[in-house]
């Protein structure tokens, strides 16, 4: 039996597994002993106790009598909010810069190159603090900068007018999302038809209609409200309208502009990876320039772009913890307060690590699913 290859493999596996599990158990037990010996209170029961501190900007309702776990929920939603917007921002800026660098116009490609080198080669923390220093040096809300009537730019934040009846606009937003999904389905259907019949039909008029009509219809159905609330200074604070805080703006810029430099290089590499012969062949078939990009170059480039871009998105999410340096109440910042107010340092850090891990894994799972859809379909 000892000489049986299969048995030996299993024995090694068992041995390795026992070692790993044994070490893990020993570490945990040792930790518990050490904590008990030092009279350090442990356990997750503290999550149900009242938090006793306030959080500056929240997407979920929160006040200081709520429990610690709600404070975590607030921190997590803020992390997700700033990360999601920054991923969109990084992608848009990154793709734009990539096309600038590929441009034959020396001015455009020079600016693109300067952008990439500048943002990629300075520490991200420095960039975040730079944006924050810049934003907090804007004028005070008592005499704000007003680029357009109703928009206030100040060192307390960027204030935008908001619709008075937010409920109505919520339905319009839902309808807009539905319309977008319908338009995408219409596009897919149209492409399949094109593959089957070989006839090229214009799809964009239908898509524009599908995107625009549902929200307009929803808006009209709930009574077509047109009233807007303008932000105004009352006492110490500006009341009314939407607000983006200086902390949010600085973190958003710091995250998206930094990662955009990496995305730009990834996109440029992806586009360059499509061989010249492909373009020549497409041109020989009589495709127009934009058709070459959309039908030949981009689908092949995506296969190269998506995996490294995933890594950048994940690192963007993790780097959102830099918010602690400038006071944006994301998970790391809130966790800092929780761990000192509750005294449960190990538990708080364990929770934080688990949350970051889950978010990062979720981002890469989504990107992997997308990656599968753009890979070569073997038939």
């Amino acid at each position, binding site marked *: 039996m000892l000489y049986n290859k299969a048995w030996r493999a299993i024995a090694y596996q068992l041995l390795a597994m026992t070692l790993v599990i044994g070490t893990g158990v020993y570490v945990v037990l040792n930790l518990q002993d050490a904590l008990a010996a030092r009279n*350090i209170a442990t356990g997750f029961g503290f999550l149900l106790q009242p938090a006793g501190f306030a*959080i500056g900007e929240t997407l979920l309702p929160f006040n*200081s009598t709520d429990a610690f776990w709600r404070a975590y929920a607030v921190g997590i939603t803020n992390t997700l909010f700033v990360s999601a917007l920054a991923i969109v921002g990084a992608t848009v800026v990154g793709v734009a810069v990539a096309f600038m660098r590929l441009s034959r116009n020396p001015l455009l490609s020079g600016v693109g190159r300067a952008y990439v080198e500048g943002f990629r080669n300075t520490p991200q923390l420095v960039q975040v603090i730079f944006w924050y220093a810049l934003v907090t040096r804007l004028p005070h809300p008592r005499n704000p900068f007003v680029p357009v009537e109703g928009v206030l730019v100040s*060192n307390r934040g960027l204030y935008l007018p908001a619709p008075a009846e937010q409920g109505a606009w919520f339905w319009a937003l839902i309808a807009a999302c539905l319309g977008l999904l319908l338009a995408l389905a219409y596009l897919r259907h149209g492409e399949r038809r094109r593959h089957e019949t070989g006839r090229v039909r214009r799809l964009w008029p239908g898509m524009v209609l599908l995107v625009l009509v549902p929200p307009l219809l929803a808006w009209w159905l709930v009574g077509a409200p047109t009233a807007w609330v303008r932000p105004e200074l009352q006492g110490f604070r500006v009341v009314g309208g939407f607000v983006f805080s200086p902390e949010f703006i600085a973190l958003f810029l710091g995250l998206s502009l930094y990662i955009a430099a990496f995305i730009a290089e990834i996109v440029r590499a992806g586009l360059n990876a499509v061989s010249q012969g492909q373009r020549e062949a497409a041109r020989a078939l009589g495709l127009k320039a934009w058709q070459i990009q959309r039908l030949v170059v981009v689908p092949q480039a995506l296969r190269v772009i998506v995996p490294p871009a995933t890594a950048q998105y994940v690192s963007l999410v993790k780097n959102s913890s830099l918010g602690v*340096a400038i006071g944006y109440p994301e998970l790391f910042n809130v966790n800092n307060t929780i761990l*000192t107010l509750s*005294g449960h340092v190990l538990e708080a850090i364990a929770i934080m690590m688990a949350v970051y891990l889950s978010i990062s894994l979720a981002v890469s799972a989504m990107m992997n699913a997308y990656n599968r859809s753009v890979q070569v379909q073997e038939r």
Partner: protein
Amino acid sequence: MIGRLLLGVAAATVAGGLSPPAAHAGPSLDAIRERGTLICGANGSRAGFSLVNSEGRWEGMDTDVCRAVATAILGDAEKVEFVKVTSQTRFPALQTGEVDMLAANVTWTLTRDAKLGVDFVAPVFYDGQGFMLPRALGVNSVDELDGATVCVLPGSTSEKVVNDVFRARGMTYTPVVIEDQKELNNAFFAGRCDAQIQSTSGLSASRATVAANPEDYVILGEVFGKDPMGPVVREDDADLRDIVGWSVYALQQAEEFGITSANVEEMAQSEDPEILTFLGATGDLGEALGLSPDWASTMIQTVGNYGEIYARSFGEQSPLQLERGLNALWTDGGLHYPPPFK
């Protein structure tokens, strides 16, 4: 029966008195003696408490407490290694044994004392939470701050105090929580917040060192909460705890006796038996703590008494210009009341 019991007690007392003090030393104290240095966790960026000066030397009241303890244990004020800790890392650093003691402007509270496996020893500095605002706002009282944006350090007592103050008055506020003291000050002095809440010592330090024009900012007279600050040690070593506590008291007792770094040798010739006992010329106070007989006199000679430390850290010789207030000795109407050296 009673006679035998008394005999037993007497024997135990004699045995206890005869055994060498070193045999009682706890694990932390032994480790310090073996290593030959005291490792002290300090903040390093709080003017008055601990600040690294332009020559790289640690200065401030907290660092002087560490030097006093090092003098008591090792006989040399320079045998201290300072480790920079923040308000988040200070307790884990102490709990894990990375530092022997904390002198990091830590506020003494029941929860911290009971739940963290650490012991608070003796208050060195009595502080409270105050609000600082631009003078131009014309605000005279906290009651006028409804709706204000308040800059606050995370996890500090301040974050809890500001919440309690505003809730008790039925007012609302927006906190801006920034971890780094420097960034917090930059944000506040750039006008990001209407007010900053912190310990009054911290506020006066920021105002003196960061504000372009200190005159433009007022610290409101209302002081909230109790912030007794002092050194912290692990629970596992009662001997170290005693030494740290009595080192602090010795600094204060020296001021009460009028012993300074300049006149300590002169005072050793004093007629006052209490002073002679304190300085180790008579009695066995040092031995009782497991220290050399002249521990207190060496300490005062190198570090100075509490009044001297206060003057160069917070008082007239420092940029902070903070009044003694609660930090005067009890004989001058303050709170520092060292127990008797008997």
